[in-house]
C-alpha cells in the first residue's frame, strides 16, 4: 500500500470518526449559544444510540430508528430544559445527572429487552444505514489521485456522514442569517435585551435545546446504526465531551468547531491505523498512547490554547428578571 493510498484511507476514516463529533458539537453550539450549558451531550448521544438500535432491530428500518433516537434526545433535552430553564437549576449538575442516568438506563433497558449484557442484537443490513456509492465511483477508481479521492474519500459513506457535513454550513446560515439565529445568539448574550424586545426568553431557550436534541439524536443513531451494527454499553466513550471540547475549541462557531472535530476525528482514526505499525526511529507505537491522544490534546487545547475564547455572556445563567 503506497503512502498516498494510506493517507486517503486515513482521511476516509477521519470523516467517519468525526461525523458523530460534528453533529454533537453543533448540538452543543445551539444549546450553549442560547445560554444553556449542555454537558448532557454524552448521555443524550448514548440514549439516542440505544433507541436507534433497539427500534431499528424491531422495525427493521434505520430511518424509524433515527426518528426514535431524535425523539429520545428531544425528550432528554426538554428534561434538561425543564431543570435549567424553567426551574433555573444548576446546568452542570443537570447535564451530569442526565449522563449518569443514561449510562445506567440504557444498559438496564437493554438487558431487560434483549438479555445480551446490555447490548442490542446485531442489526442486519436492511436495518442499518448503508454506504452510498456515487455514480461512476467504481469506474474512476483506477484514475490516479482524483479517482481514489472520488471513489474512496467522497463516495461510499452513509447518509448521516453527508448530513453531518452539510449541517455545518446549514447551522452557520441559521445562526447568522436568520431571525431565529439572531434571537438565539442574543438570548445567550443578554436575555434582558431579548425580553425587553418583546421576545420570550424561556421559549427561545427551549427552541434552542430542541435543535440541540435533534442534532445529538442523529449523532447517537450514527454510532449504533451506521458506524456500528448494535448498541454497546457506554459506546459513546466520552465522544459527547470531546464534541463539547471541540465546540469550545471552535469558540462556539460552526466552521471552527468543524475543524476541531476533524482534528479529533483524525487523531482517532490515526490511533486505529497506527496499531501495530512500526515507525522508524520510534518502534512500535503503544496503542494506548495513541488512543489517549485525543483526550490529552483536549486537555492541552482547553488549558492552553483557547484561553481567549469568549463564551456567550449569559452562558450558564438562568434568566431572572432584575428587581
Amino acid at each position, binding site marked *: 500500500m503506497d503512502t498516498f493510498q494510506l493517507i486517503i484511507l486515513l482521511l476516509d476514516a477521519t470523516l467517519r470518526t468525526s461525523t458523530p463529533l460534528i453533529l454533537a458539537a453543533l448540538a452543543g453550539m445551539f444549546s450553549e449559544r442560547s445560554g444553556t450549558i449542555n454537558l448532557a451531550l454524552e448521555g443524550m448521544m448514548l440514549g439516542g444510540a440505544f433507541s436507534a438500535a433497539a427500534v431499528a432491530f424491531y422495525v427493521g428500518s434505520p430511518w424509524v430508528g433515527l426518528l426514535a433516537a431524535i425523539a429520545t434526545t428531544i425528550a432528554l433535552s426538554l428534561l434538561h430544559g425543564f431543570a435549567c430553564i424553567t426551574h433555573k437549576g444548576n446546568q452542570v449538575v443537570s447535564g451530569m445527572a442526565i449522563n449518569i442516568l443514561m449510562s445506567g438506563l440504557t444498559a438496564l433497558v437493554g438487558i431487560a429487552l434483549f438479555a445480551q449484557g446490555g447490548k442490542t442484537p446485531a442489526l442486519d443490513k436492511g436495518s442499518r444505514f448503508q454506504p452510498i456509492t456515487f455514480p461512476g465511483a467504481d469506474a474512476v477508481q483506477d484514475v490516479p489521485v482524483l479517482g481514489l479521492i472520488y471513489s474512496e474519500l467522497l463516495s461510499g459513506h452513509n447518509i448521516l456522514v453527508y448530513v453531518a457535513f452539510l449541517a455545518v454550513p446549514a447551522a452557520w446560515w441559521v445562526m447568522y*442569517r436568520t431571525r431565529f439565529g439572531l434571537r438565539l*445568539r*442574543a438570548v445567550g448574550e*443578554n436575555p434582558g*435585551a431579548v425580553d*425587553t*424586545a*418583546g421576545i420570550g426568553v424561556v421559549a427561545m431557550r427551549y427552541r434552542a435545546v430542541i435543535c440541540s436534541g435533534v442534532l445529538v439524536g442523529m449523532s447517537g443513531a450514527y454510532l449504533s446504526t451506521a458506524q456500528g451494527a448494535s448498541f454497546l454499553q457506554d459506546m459513546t466513550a466520552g465522544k459527547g465531551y470531546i464534541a463539547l471540547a471541540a465546540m469550545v475549541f471552535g469558540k462556539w462557531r460552526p466552521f471552527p468547531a468543524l475543524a476541531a472535530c476533524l482534528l479529533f476525528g483524525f487523531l482517532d482514526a490515526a490511533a486505529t491505523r497506527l496499531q501495530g505499525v512500526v515507525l522508524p526511529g520510534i518502534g512500535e507505537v503503544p496503542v494506548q498512547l495513541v488512543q489517549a491522544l485525543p483526550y490529552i490534546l483536549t486537555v492541552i487545547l482547553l488549558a492552553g490554547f483557547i484561553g481567549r475564547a469568549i463564551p456567550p455572556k449569559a452562558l450558564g445563567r438562568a434568566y431572572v*428578571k432584575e428587581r
Partner: protein
Amino acid sequence: MHQMHGAGETGAVQPAIELRGIDKRFGAVHANKEIDLKVDKGTIHGIVGENGAGKSTLMSILYGFYQADAGTIHVDGKLCEINGSEDAIAVGIGMVHQHFMLVETFSVLENVILGVEGGAVLRDGVEKAREELKRLEREYSLNIDPDAIVGDLSVGLQQRVEILKALYRGAEILILDEPTGVLTPQEADHLFRILDTLKEQGKTVVLITHKLREIMAATDNVSVMRQGAMVAHRKTAETSPEELSELMVGRKVLLRLEKGEAKPAATVLKVDNLCVDNAQGVRKVKNATFTVRAGEIVGIAGVSGNGQSELLEALGGIRSASEGTVELNGQDVTPGKGVDAAELRRRGVAHVPEDRHRMAMVTAFSAKEAAILGYEDDPAYQKGGLLDWDAISAATANMMSEFDVRPDNPDLKAANFSGGNQQKLVLAREIMRDPELLLVGQPTRGVDIGAIEFIHKRIVAMRDAGKAVLLVSVELDEIMSLADRILVMCDGAIIGEVAASEANERVLGLMMAGVDPNEAKAAEGQA
C-alpha cells in the same frame, strides 16, 4: 397632535399615559402604593424619588416587565392590558433602561432590529432597517454608525442605540431610567438636547432620576415618589430643588454641605508613578502621582471605568502595583510586595470599597459579623482563640448608635438593612478604628438623601480630626461639595488637579472627557 380616543371625553386632550391606582408588592415590600399619574402628550415628565422609592418598579410595570397587583394603565385614553414588553411596544411605549439592554457582540443595526426583524431571513429586513435608521438619525440628529459593534461604543453612544431601538419600534412615549448615571456632564447635555428634539417632534418623554438638577433643567412637569407612594405633582417652573428634596425625603434637607477651611498638615499618602494592570494585563492606572495630606479630603473625579476603581483597590492593597511606589507616612507600602489589605489595615489605612455588596460586606452575614470583617483578628474580639461574640455584639451596638444605623439590631442579617444603613455600618467599621488614612469609594451610591447628609458630615469630621481622606466618586456634586482638592482621571491617567474653590461642573466635565485642564479652563473662560 389631537388624538381622540375616549368616548365620553370628547374635546379634551387625552394624557399620553394615565396610571390609576397602581399597586405592587414584592413579598413584604410594598413597592408601589396606589399610584396615580398623568403624563401629558408632548411633554418631558420627570419622576424623582430616593433609591427604593419605587420609581423603577412603576416604570417596569408600565413597560410590562412586571404586572401590577391592582390598578389600570391608560395610553392615549385607552385602557391597555400590558402583560409583557411586546404589549408595551405595541401601544408605542419604549424604554431606555438604566442598565442597557443591548447585545454587546452585535452591531448597532442588529441590536435595533432584534425582535422586529421583518422576516424569517435577515437579509430582507436589514436593508429596510438601514434606510429607516438613516431617516431616524437625520430626524433626531443621532449620528451613529449602524455597523459598529455595540461593545466598542462609548456609553453615551450605547445609550443612543437604546433610544434608536425605541424609535425604530415606533415609540411615541419614551421612558428613560436614570439615564445620566454613566454619562459625563457634556454627554448628559447632549442627551437632554436629544430629548428636546424628541419633544419638538411630538414625542412624550418620561425621565426617571434622583438628580434634582436634571429635573429642573430638562422637564416640564415633575412627580415625586417617596416610599412607594406618589406624594406630589408639580409644574417644574413652579417648584424648586429645595421643595422637591423636602418632598422626596419628607423633611428639610441641607443640599449644600457646610464645612470649614481645610487645614492640611504633613503628607500622609505619597503615590509616585503608580501603574496598575487588570487581570487581562490591560493597564488601568497609568503613572498616577499625587499626595494626600493629613487634614484634607482629596477627591478623584472621573466617568465610571476610567481607572479610579483600580487605583482605589491598589491603594487598599487588593490589587498589585505594576510600577511605581506608594508611601504611607514615609514608609514604603507599595501594594503587592508583601503589602496586602491586612497589612495596610494594621498600618492605619481604612478602606471603604466602592461596591458595598461585592467587597465591603457579606450580605448573608449578620450585622455583627459584617461589623468585624477585616478586623476579626483584633484581640478585642477574641477570647481563648475563639471569637468573643459578647464583645462583638457590644462593639457593633456601639457602632450602630454612633452612626445612627437603623434598626440597631446587631443580629439582623446585613441584607435586611437599607442601602444607607449598610453603608453607615461599613463606614462605622472603618472610621471607628481611627485610621490615619481613609480610602472611600462611592460613599453614597444607592444611599438615600437623609443618609447622604450624615455620611458626608462624618467624612468631613474625619478630615477635621486631622486625618487624610481619599474620596473616589462618580457623582460630581459629591466630589465638589466634599473635596478640598480634586484630581480628574481619564483613561487611567490623572489629567489634572483643580482646587475645590475653583472647580465647576463644566471644567471638570471637559477634563473627565480627556480635555487638557488648561484648555478646559480656557474654554470655560470663553463660555
